[in-house]
């Protein structure tokens, strides 16, 4: 009896409730959504420009449906996602511009106090659909409140030519970094090389370089936001990338985000990191050569390095509304509408699986299994880390990524303009300038 206190009673009650809820004895109540948008609301939405036309068309169609249902007028605009960043920054700075932006990564963490608190939307969606992926929560939540709602990620997977990989002696795509290096070396030997952007390509170069750094245990900062990139783990990652770089098609140091798509669809590339767009474009192309390439290609997750877990970095897309909006409730209503499973699913089907969902409950969409080539993109958010790893998301993480600190480190060492040690040291100096503020 001595241990029978209020705390133990509460624990026992919650445990019992959980046990009952597990098998479905206690019905899980649907989350409640109570939000009354402002009368005669009218909002301006700026989102990333489509890579797949059907995706944008469906988004626009649903926007129209939203307006018809709620009476809220929506002006929809699209910009290249790299151009959204400056616009979002200016809107935050001057307090005018779009009411809602669908942008990328940790942008909202650069101006959190300018943004509408969307905790109620996040709570509703999380409860309604069984919870967010942890990385999605990282990209949406600052402290106890949500400042952004993750829309998903324009998932990046390895795009490869099936016949070329087979000709290189691999029946299955390698799942670890050692096998991956051997594959790239064999592809190079067969004159069907791999190629990964190593220029200032915001999505592609940052994506695979962060993966490589993390795969070997390297990281820009630790969990106290102290810069620790100049480490033996980073040197190991650089040495690995140097070997990979030697197998790449010439010119990757100059590549931006569109180069690999062009080279792949021209048949000059056998392996690269990209979204599902190469395959979709090839499949829908009228050019028989591109159709043939689409038939001969498949997708795979990034290999796992010595750390033993997936270490992908994905281009996560996020909704964030501004406090300068006259209609913050209408903004939240729009996000909730677009993220509701029914609408999200229909949009996902139209986009052919272009956006990996942030809520695992959305994985049952038939589009993910309609073709096995689409399936690897489904779990991108399950496999990825946020770009501030292992520290916080915020100004410094965004600045390090925006300033290409990690990409330049690998590029310097891979191209021979610096030793791995020099490159790691320089990266540390550059990162410290942001993290010491």
């Amino acid at each position, binding site marked *: 009896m001595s241990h029978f206190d209020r705390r133990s009673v509460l624990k026992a009650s919650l445990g019992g409730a959980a046990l009952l809820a597990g098998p479905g004895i206690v019905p899980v109540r649907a989350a409640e959504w109570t939000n009354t948008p402002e009368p005669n609301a009218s909002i301006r939405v700026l989102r990333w420009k489509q890579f797949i036309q059907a995706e944008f068309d469906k988004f626009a169609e649903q926007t129209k449906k939203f307006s018809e249902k709620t009476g809220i007028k929506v002006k929809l605009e699209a910009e290249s996602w790299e151009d959204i*960043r*400056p616009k979002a*920054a200016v809107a*935050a*700075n001057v307090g005018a511009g779009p009411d809602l932006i669908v942008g990328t990564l940790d942008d909202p963490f*650069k*101006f959190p*106090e*300018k943004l509408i608190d969307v905790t109620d939307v996040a709570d509703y969606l999380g409860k309604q659909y069984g919870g967010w992926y942890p990385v999605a929560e990282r990209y949406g939540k600052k402290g106890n409140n949500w400042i952004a709602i993750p829309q998903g990620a324009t998932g990046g997977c390895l795009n490869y030519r099936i016949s070329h990989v087979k000709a290189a002696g691999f029946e299955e795509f390698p799942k670890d970094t050692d096998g991956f290096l051997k594959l790239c070396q064999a592809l190079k030997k067969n004159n069907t090389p791999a190629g990964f952007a*190593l*220029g*200032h390509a915001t999505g592609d170069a940052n994506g695979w370089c962060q993966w490589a750094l993390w795969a070997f245990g390297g990281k820009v900062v630790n969990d106290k936001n102290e810069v620790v990139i100049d480490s033996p783990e980073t040197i190991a990652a650089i040495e690995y990338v140097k070997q990979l770089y030697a197998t790449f*098609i*010439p*010119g*990757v*140091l*100059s*590549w*931006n985000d569109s*180069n690999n798509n*062009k*080279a792949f669809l*021209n048949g*000059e590339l056998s392996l690269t990191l990209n979204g599902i767009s190469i395959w979709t474009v090839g499949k829908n192309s009228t050019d028989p050569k591109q159709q043939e390439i689409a038939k001969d290609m498949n997708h795979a997750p990034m290999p796992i390095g010595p750390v033993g877990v997936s270490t992908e970095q994905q281009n996560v897309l996020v909704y964030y509304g501004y406090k300068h909006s006259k209609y913050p409730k209408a903004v939240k209503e729009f996000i909730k509408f677009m993220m509701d499973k029914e609408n999200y699913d229909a949009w996902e089907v139209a986009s052919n699986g272009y956006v990996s969902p942030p809520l695992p409950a959305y994985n049952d969409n038939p589009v993910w299994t309609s073709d096995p080539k689409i399936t690897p993109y489904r779990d991108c958010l399950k496999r990825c880390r946020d770009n501030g790893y292992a520290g916080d998301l915020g*100004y410094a993480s*965004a*600045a390090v990524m*925006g*300033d*290409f600190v990690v990409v*330049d480190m690998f*590029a*310097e060492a891979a*191209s021979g*303009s610096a030793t791995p040690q020099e490159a790691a040291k*320089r990266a540390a*100096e*550059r990162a410290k*300038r*942001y993290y010491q*503020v």
Partner: protein
Amino acid sequence: MAVIAEPAAAEVKRSSLWSRAFESRHFLGAMFMVPAIAILILFLAYPLALGFWLGMTDTKIGGVGRYIGFQNFVSLSKDSVFWLSVFNTIFYTVFASIVKFAVGLYLALLLNERLPFKSMVRAIVLLPFVVPTVLSAIAFWWIYDSQFSIISWLLIKAGLLTHYIDFLGDPWNARWSVVLANIWRGVPFVAITLLAGLQTISPSLYEAANLDGATNLQRFRHITLPMLSPIIAVVMTFSVLMTFTDFQLIYTITRGGPINATHLMATLSFQRAITGGNLGEGAAISNAMIPFLVAAILLSFFGLQRSRWQQGGRD
């Protein structure tokens, strides 16, 4: 009566003062200047002052920022990428400006002669200047593409090369490639402006020189160049300023890569301020450009406009 007369007298006094003020040339002149001064303050002085102020603060995107004095500059002085961007900017400006001047002057002299289809040739010369910068930058980006370059393709087809040139993937190749793109874009401005200057030189000077038996080189050395020097000073000042502060060409073609080899101060400023979110540091980089720009202006005006030199004398 006194109650009524007093305010009336004051009104008359005020009215006459106001009327008399408008009769004054000085006052009226100042009033006419007010809109122009207001525009200058609002659109030129204020942004410049704001830039100076931001450079002295730790302002982040969306934040207020606090005054930190010269801390941004101290931090930049230890930043290798910043110094690389300073080197790149000077390299880019010096080589592009020299070649633009040489080619522009040559074209101007050529167009000043009696040429068949002169109007058409002038229109063609102007074309690079007419095309929006971003479009021409995209064209160059394709021309320099590592897999699809038309230059590499032609050279391989002609049997002069065995593999594609890595125009933008090698730091020095990339630097020269962007310089070339800038030259292509900037030559028309130099050529057409110098042509305008050439047409103001009186033909009688050349006739007199011909009678004296001057050679082509002597006529160029002792008539054309001195007479053209004021316009050269203006053209080169503008050319240097525009080249030094170039942004669009670099941002579209290389985004400062590879390994920051083509980052100019302007592109780095944008990258740090907008992409990176550090408005204070971005502004500080922009402010760091000012001494170079002032030096360029002083060099042009005080160097090229020396009256003795204009008159054919020596320094």
